[in-house]
């Protein structure tokens, strides 16, 4: 499951930034072309997995993989500038070298989701690891049922992957709902929390899988609404985040009770998440 660089799992592969794109204020999309041996390791990573990206000289941090190998050999990461590593990454440009370790963690069981309707809920930068889920459905459209995407951000400018919405919307059997907390004058879509939007849409739990990623507090409240709508915990998946330093189950940092987010997660069904001794909140 964890592919490592040679024999040393802490040694990163090198990758070159082939594209750095501003997605929103303080959020950039990095596209990385792997240089040494890493291509093999990342040949068949899955939606939901993550990798450590190094800004050399500053450090490394985990990021959800925002791409799928089916769409080409480059890796994509959406990075919000928050701490020292993300700041270091934001200072890099096309042609610069970064380090990549991975792919790490488990993934969304996309095979098990076949022929089911999917409800994808992304909040802010938390939408990034859900993009591979959306892409997988779009690229294998007949295999999946109806796809409903609820995409939220604090402000319209903070919505990520905006240039892809048209394609998502144009795909048959796919709908996209946007919502923001603080609209600007041009905003003509839903205003409010993602939970408000979810309650208004009230999707049926029948033959449906819900997939959520966002801040812990959002995951908590989305789960409450999903339960109210009749979603069983087994029908609901989340991807969790934590501070971590190794990604391979050694550094002890990311445990939730006796589970480690880096190797037992980051993807959990709400049934599994509910069984965790320690709350992710």
């Amino acid at each position: 499951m964890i592919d490592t660089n040679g024999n040393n799992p802490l040694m990163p592969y090198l990758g070159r930034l082939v594209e750095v794109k501003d997605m929103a204020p303080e959020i950039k999309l990095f596209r990385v072309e792997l240089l040494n041996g890493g291509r093999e390791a990342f040949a068949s990573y899955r939606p939901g997995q993550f990798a450590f990206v190094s800004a050399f000289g500053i450090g490394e941090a985990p990021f959800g993989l925002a791409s799928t190998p089916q769409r080409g050999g480059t890796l994509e990461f959406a990075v919000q500038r928050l701490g020292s590593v993300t700041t270091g990454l934001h200072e890099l440009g096309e042609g610069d070298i970064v380090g990549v370790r991975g792919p790490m963690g488990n993934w969304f069981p996309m095979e098990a989701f076949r022929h089911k309707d999917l409800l994808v809920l992304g909040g802010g930068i938390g939408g990034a690891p859900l993009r591979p889920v959306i892409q997988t459905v779009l690229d294998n459209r007949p295999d999946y049922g109806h796809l409903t995407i609820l995409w939220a951000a604090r402000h319209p400018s903070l919505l990520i992957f905006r240039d892809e919405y048209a394609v998502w919307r144009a795909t048959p059997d796919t709908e996209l709902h946007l919502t923001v907390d603080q609209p600007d004058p041009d905003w003509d879509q839903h205003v409010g929390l993602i939970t408000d939007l979810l309650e208004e849409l009230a999707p049926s739990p029948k033959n449906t899988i819900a997939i959520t990623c966002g801040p812990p507090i959002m995951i908590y409240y989305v789960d409450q609404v999903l339960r109210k709508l009749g979603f069983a915990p087994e029908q609901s998946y989340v991807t969790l985040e934590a501070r971590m330093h190794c990604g391979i189950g050694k550094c002890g940092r990311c445990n939730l009770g006796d589970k480690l987010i880096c190797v037992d997660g980051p993807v959990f069904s709400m049934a599994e998440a509910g069984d965790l001794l320690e709350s992710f909140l």
Partner: protein
Amino acid sequence: MDVITSGALASWLDRLAAESTLIAPRSVEGVLLYRPVTSSADIARDFTRPVLSIKEFFFPATERLLTIEKTGQTITLQQTLPEGKQVIFGVRPCDARGMKVMDALFIETSPADTYYASRRENTTLIGLACKEMGESCFCTSIGGTPDDHRDMDIMLTEVEGGYAVQAVTSKGKALLEGVPLQERPGHLPKQVITASFPFPETAYWPLRFNDAYWEQMSERCLSCRICAYVCPTCRCFDIRDEPLAVGKDQYERIRCWDSCAGEAYRRIAGGHNPRAAKGQRLRNRFFCKFYYYPQQYGPLACTGCGRCVDACPVNIDITEVMSHLAEVEA
């Protein structure tokens, strides 16, 4: 039994110090620590246990993982693996057990940690059985004994005029080659067991997770890291890059000890901290020792060495926690 005389032991140790790095208990400005020694004369013999365990010779407080050099847009990484043989003399059974506990995580759980594994490979442990249990020792409550030889390469037990020698592993046998041993009749002296604390079953711990007890018992915790750093099994770490030379584009990626008792341990870049309360952090420590670690990697992450009991500035006592849980369980 095979016996090495005190004199023969001294010359053997002097030879080992000359041939490889010999690490042994030594007084450093009044503090007993495992430190490299050049002469057997510097080695302390009469002690309960040094302040720090032997883990720092496998999992150092700070170690370099790799070096990074930037030249224009080119990056050169160089892996820096530890080298050289080391022998640790005077290892107590609790510390040797600690290494077995760490092996379960760093070696036996895939992927193996290259740095730890190579140090482990290059190190031989010469144990010294405890003559008696220290005031805060409780290895016997946790499956060990003061003369447990199982986790050593060589075990020494003090007898009249010298030490009884057990070669436990092939690494140990190899190290003993050419060492003069006397065949002596009789058996190893029996050890005195003085401490026995009730030990709550692993399966019982989750039932106590939400107890108010954790908040109460942790109120006096200072959130320092002594308990984790003196512990022979605590292994949490942080990784970061630091500049190597002023004004040059050279960096090292280092790994350093960390502790779940520290306030920022779980805080993420956005500021969210799921373990902001002391009670949550200390609960994590005890659950890690007795529940999480066994669930994740197998062995209990406590060897009963009692270091945390003696070093805690505010007397947070792991045996008191065990006793409390056992009492609630009963």
